[in-house]
């Protein structure tokens, strides 16, 4: 299809007018804008847990569990020792009584 621009003089002002009429801003869809914003903010929020932070967190958990386990074992051993001591005293007093 021929659109007849050759018949009109294409001077600078006419081209500028055509560009003004044709190149108009376009809007993205509202759902795209809000979804992308949510994704970006989530990524930024997710950045707080970087791989190094995760490694540090895991190491802390392992150390804490090991310490807690060690503490629990010590208490258990202490209790067993106490029970053993009490049993020994009971036997000694029983032996002295007889």
């Amino acid at each position, binding site marked *: *299809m*021929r*659109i*007849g*621009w*050759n018949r009109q003089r*294409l001077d*600078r002002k006419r*081209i*500028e007018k*055509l*560009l*003004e*009429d*044709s*190149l*108009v*801003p*376009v*809007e*993205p*869809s509202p759902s*795209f*804008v809000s979804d*992308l*914003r949510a*994704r*970006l*903010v989530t*990524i*930024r*929020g997710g950045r707080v847990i970087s791989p190094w932070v995760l490694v540090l967190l895991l190491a802390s958990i392992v150390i804490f569990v090991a310490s807690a386990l060690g503490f629990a074992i010590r208490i258990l051993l202490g209790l067993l020792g106490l029970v053993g001591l009490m049993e020994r005293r009971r036997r000694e007093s029983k032996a002295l009584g007889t």
Partner: protein
Amino acid sequence: MTPRESDEMELVRSAASEAEAFGELYNRHVTRIYSYIYYRTGDYQDAEDLTARVFQRALRHVGNFQDQGVPFSAWLYRIAHNLVANWHRDRSRRPVVPLEDHVADTAAITHPEALALAEEQNRTLLRAVRKLPPDRQQLLILKFVERLPNAEIGQIMGRTEGAIKSLYHRTLNSLRDQIKMMEDGAMGNPD
């Protein structure tokens, strides 16, 4: 520096660590970046995809942004320009999607023949624009879609204001030649 510019720089500094600050920057610039990419690609879907990549890249590197008198928007446009250039390079072996679906608002024209002519002129002009070299397309989009002054276009394109004026003059001449070539091609084509 204007109050708006200093406010923006404050936001940029906060955006390195605060999600909401980056969200505010995003709100301010997303439409302009999308519009720019749309005119460079001619496709809504690709424009959305590339816009998302621009802001993801900006998010990763916003902490490295340094205030050297160049506005944040110029930095975003440069990211967009590079991504669009990569996009064109990746698609160079595939057929280029013509920017024909987009026709500016011609609702004011009521006569059917006049409307058809206006739409055809619009499509031809957009086709001619897309045949220009990338830097000239960029200049026209920044000037007519974004309505930016030459000084700001210069900051975005890394050229002086005088160089932009000169490039603009050459771009209009190229566009006129391109339109004439397309017209002559249409004359030789019986369709």
